[in-house]
């Protein structure tokens, strides 16, 4: 096969199927589907064949999490066999010029995001980043798959349809959150899930009631949940997203009760106190950023040694920040397990055989599929309670 020619053929076929208005040049690309756990030998062989031809990406291209922490895979519990296969996948991608970011948040959190401007076209294959980028940064990307983003990276082009066109970025539904959404990534994730569950009508929701400010963690949570549970690739919110104009008129309208969200977020806290819930908590889906790591280190400040198991997943770009490194050192010293480059959904380990708690609404959908474990959704404060020995029972 001729990889470059194939990449062009793929784009032409996709453009035809989507009735695209030709193609647009992209500023960067983000490839996914690179964990050996998903790719298997079929994907590995394909990527190696492609890279053996000397094919290179034409634009800066970042990579989604792979199946392991590239340094601490052994400590993470990943087998040597898996690690070797994953290293071959990574080597094939890197030989094609893909930057080894291994992060789901790099497209909007990493060093390239500052060179993106509103209206720029990109091709990203991580759905939470797609929603964050379209909504918060105002860039334009469809929800690409691993292969389509890779072929866009090779050609430097993407079919011009969907999110790349003005007409598809207009609000389709007005959502009023009353009283306003309570604080916290779990709460914002639950709101995203609720909106996404409306279906096709919620393709571009205009959300009123998110307030004037939001933490990065909350924005990541709502973006991830909207993408996981429905067709939304872009949401509009006054003061939070650059493309939200005045409140739209004449659209269908729904009202979501902010208090109800709060209640459902706290529903299981009592159960946790009774000791009926797992004694492991997983944070970092999407991967934890600098702010999240610093927050967690402060939350755990007065704990000497944590009880139970706390897992945190983060990225190399977050750890390039000295404040983040300090937070990680302090958390690790207390017994918190922290890994980068990967996430539990894409990695064979940890298995969470005895169940797990998390504040990530997105992972509550993907963990049952990838691990056969249904996590219990608990607010971040329950991670503190667990670590602080406040959860009784076995």
């Amino acid at each position, binding site marked *: 096969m001729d990889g470059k020619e194939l990449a062009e053929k793929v784009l032409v076929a996709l453009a035809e199927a989507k009735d695209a208005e030709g193609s647009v040049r992209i500023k960067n690309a983000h490839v996914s*589907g690179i964990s050996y756990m998903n*790719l298997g030998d079929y994907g590995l062989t394909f990527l190696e064949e492609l890279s053996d031809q000397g094919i290179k990406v034409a634009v800066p291209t970042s990579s989604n999490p792979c199946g392991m922490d590239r340094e601490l895979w052994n400590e993470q519990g990943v087998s040597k066999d898996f690690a070797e296969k994953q290293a071959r996948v990574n080597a094939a991608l890197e030989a094609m010029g893909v930057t080894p970011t291994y992060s789901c948040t790099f497209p909007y959190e990493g060093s390239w995001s500052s060179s993106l401007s509103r209206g720029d076209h990109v091709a990203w294959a991580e759905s939470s980043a797609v929603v964050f980028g379209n909504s918060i940064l105002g860039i334009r990307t469809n929800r690409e798959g691993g292969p389509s983003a890779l072929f866009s990276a090779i050609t430097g082009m993407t079919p011009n349809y969907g999110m790349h066109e003005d007409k598809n970025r207009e609000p389709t539904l007005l959502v009023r959150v009353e009283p306003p959404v309570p604080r916290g990534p779990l709460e914002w994730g639950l709101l995203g899930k609720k909106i996404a569950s409306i279906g096709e009508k919620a393709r571009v929701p205009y959300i009123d009631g998110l307030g004037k400010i939001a933490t990065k963690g909350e924005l990541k949570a709502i973006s991830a949940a909207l993408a996981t549970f429905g067709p939304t690739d872009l949401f509009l919110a006054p003061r939070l997203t650059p493309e939200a104009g005045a409140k739209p008129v004449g659209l269908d309208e729904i009202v979501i009760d902010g208090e109800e969200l709060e209640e459902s977020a706290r529903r299981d806290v009592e159960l946790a106190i009774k000791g009926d819930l797992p004694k492991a908590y997983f944070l970092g889906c999407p991967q934890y950023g600098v702010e999240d790591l610093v927050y967690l280190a402060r939350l755990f400040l007065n704990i000497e040694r944590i009880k139970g198991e706390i897992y945190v997943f983060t990225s190399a770009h977050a750890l390039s920040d000295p404040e983040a490194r300090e937070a990680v050192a302090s958390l690790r010293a207390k017994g918190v397990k922290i890994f980068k480059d990967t996430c539990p959904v894409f990695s064979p380990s940890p298995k969470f055989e005895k169940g797990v708690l998390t504040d990530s609404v997105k992972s509550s959908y993907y963990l049952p599929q990838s691990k056969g474990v249904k996590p219990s959704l608990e607010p971040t404060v329950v991670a503190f309670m667990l670590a602080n020995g406040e959860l009784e029972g076995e």
Partner: protein
Amino acid sequence: MVKGNLEGRTLVSKYPLSFLGGVDPNSGRVIDPDSDIKGESITGKILIYPTGKGSTVGSYVIYAMKKMGTAPLAIVLREADTVTIIGCVLADIPLMHRVKPDPLSIGNNVRVMLSGDALEVLE
């Protein structure tokens, strides 16, 4: 989308198909427990289903099946999806969608001909 002129026998499913996990690439058989063509071999057939679903790695599975000789002869969908399109381009398997009559109304094991953008029932 991927053009081809050929003749073959149909295998029709009413359900969306995932190539990753839904098909065994070694045997060419459908292994999705919920599929109405579970256990059937798709090898050498004109495979008809509404649209693709599931992991985008499915594209690489289609490509691998072609190399192993277990791939379908052609694929006809009601509405093409990204996973199937990319897989068919990579594997050079003829692919059609939005054809008349509704391809799902054609029965199993019927001889059909693909030419250009048209699908013709031969019997």
